[in-house]
């Protein structure tokens, strides 16, 4: 318990990262190459902060409203973005992040400009963060096992097959954007309520790369991929405190090495290996049984 308490900020940060990684994971699983998570998180954080500071809304309602707003934001941007593919989608979502940043920096009356918003009530602690991660994780697991998750998998692996099976690609891309927007905004709102102040530069290109690194490292199919990736990439820099200056080098190297040598991420590679092992074991059992039966027949 003491251990938990003394490292509480670190755990909170790790859980926040897990939420962000979930938001990135949903889109990647559906084969949408969106890098818009940073914009969604920024939207959620600003929505929550403005609601609480300027309008005195209760933090719980703030979080709910921010999440709903994030879903609406995701649905809105999905209208143009779901029509695009691959590189174009990636570029458009990066542009989205840039537009969000410029708006946050320049709409001073609403967002406080470069200074950000201060004096946000602290309502979110480790427990609330944990509950949020559990709820979102549960929803994602259930979704992954439903027809929605299977459609996502098919679209990611082969769009032509998906279309031939009667799965609407655009519709599912839109769903993925809405989910990503809602989860991203939830993460942002939670972060705003746990850190007293927010500044626009937190939600820039840097966040995009970090979150992407988490999901790439962890894996894009299993829900446990982003969890593992987020935890590893939050704790690793802390362990390497002595090499403070080379933290970004490390992050870059992790990103490069994992995409080159572990293209499916840690969790998915391991799960895949486990599955093939089980399959081959089953095969061995079946073969043994067959030879045994044949021996019996011969002896009879």
């Amino acid at each position: 318990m003491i251990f938990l308490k003394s490292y509480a900020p670190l755990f909170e940060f790790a859980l926040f990262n897990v939420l962000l990684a979930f938001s990135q994971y949903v889109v990647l699983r559906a084969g949408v190459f969106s890098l818009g998570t940073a914009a969604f998180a920024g939207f959620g954080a600003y929505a929550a902060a403005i609601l609480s500071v300027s309008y005195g809304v209760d933090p719980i309602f703030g979080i709910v409203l921010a999440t709903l707003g994030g879903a609406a934001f995701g649905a809105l941007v999905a209208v143009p973005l779901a029509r695009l593919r691959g590189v174009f989608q990636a570029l458009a979502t990066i542009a989205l992040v840039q537009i969000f940043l410029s708006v946050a920096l320049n709409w001073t009356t609403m967002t406080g400009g470069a200074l950000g918003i201060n004096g946000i009530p602290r309502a979110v602690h480790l427990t609330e963060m944990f509950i949020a991660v559990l709820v979102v994780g549960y929803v994602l697991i259930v979704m992954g096992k439903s027809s929605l998750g299977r459609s996502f998998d098919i679209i990611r692996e082969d769009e032509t097959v998906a279309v031939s099976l009667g799965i609407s690609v655009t519709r599912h891309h839109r769903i993925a954007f809405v989910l990503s927007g809602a989860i991203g905004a939830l993460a942002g709102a939670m972060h705003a309520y746990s850190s007293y102040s927010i500044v626009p530069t937190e939600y820039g290109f840097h966040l995009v790369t970090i979150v992407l690194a988490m999901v790439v490292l962890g894996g894009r199919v299993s829900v446990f991929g982003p969890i593992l990736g987020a935890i590893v990439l939050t704790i690793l820099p802390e362990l390497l405190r002595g090499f403070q200056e080379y933290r970004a080098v490390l992050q870059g190297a992790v990103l490069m090495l994992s995409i080159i040598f572990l293209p499916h991420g840690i969790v998915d590679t391991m799960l895949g290996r486990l599955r093939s092992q089980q399959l081959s074991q089953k095969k061995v059992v079946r073969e043994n049984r067959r030879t045994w039966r044949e021996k019996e027949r011969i002896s009879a």
Partner: protein
Amino acid sequence: MNGVVVGSVYGLFALGFTLLFGVNHIMNMAHGSVFMWGAIAALMIVTQLDMPFGVALVVGALTGGVLSVLLDYVAFRPLRRRGAPEFSAIVSSIGANLILLALAQEYTQTKVFRFPFDTFPIRIFEIFGVRVQLLQLVIMGIVVLMVVGLFWYLFRTSYGRQVRAVAYSERTSKLLGINPTSINFQVFFLSGALAGIAGVLIGLAFNTVHFMMGEPFLMRAFVVIILGGLGSIPGALIAGLFIGIIQTLTISYVSAGVAEIVVFSLLFIILLVRPTGLFGTMSTAVRVSRT
């Protein structure tokens, strides 16, 4: 006038980017860092070794080229060999970008550098009532020279024919006895060299060199190549000029913050209305495979 100068450098920078995309179908997210390292190398040559401007330009180009080839070997070649989807190339180059950025930050100690005052003589001309600095003229001259050189290389030499063949289909060109490895080497070197030169020119024009200078240019380059059509060389140039002028006009008549919003909203609108860009052909868009 300022817009034309900035725009032509945007064009030069985006040219290397679009060349890589056209030939290898790679989005090199580390292109901005190559650009920044070119500027830093040139700056070091000028300040430490006291070399003239021309030498600095060459050094900047060489640094960019070598760095870009290095990137190819480390970040892209293993992926290409496996036939990985383009998603992987983007992720891997983002990683490379982080490394290059961090090294530059460490090297420059997060300081902002300036070229010494006498690197380039300041002379002001008046042409048709417009005040023009000698530096601006020289920058435009260099850009024109580079572009003409690139066109000559691509469309008038046998190397260029090979590059275009590889861009069209790597397998077919292999059957015809073209070595794609050497072509990739050339393309990466050229693209890096263009970025390096653009870095030196921008460093001179704005007289600041620092480790974060690449990122905004990379973002602009996205807009430029989408506007001009992915993989289209004339498109990149014209779109570069266009973006430069629009940006300068918005900055001078409205504000710098609005300019950002205008430029990136432009990207959105183009992706919506005409995703192939103004000069892109359908085939360039079709060739973009799904990940």
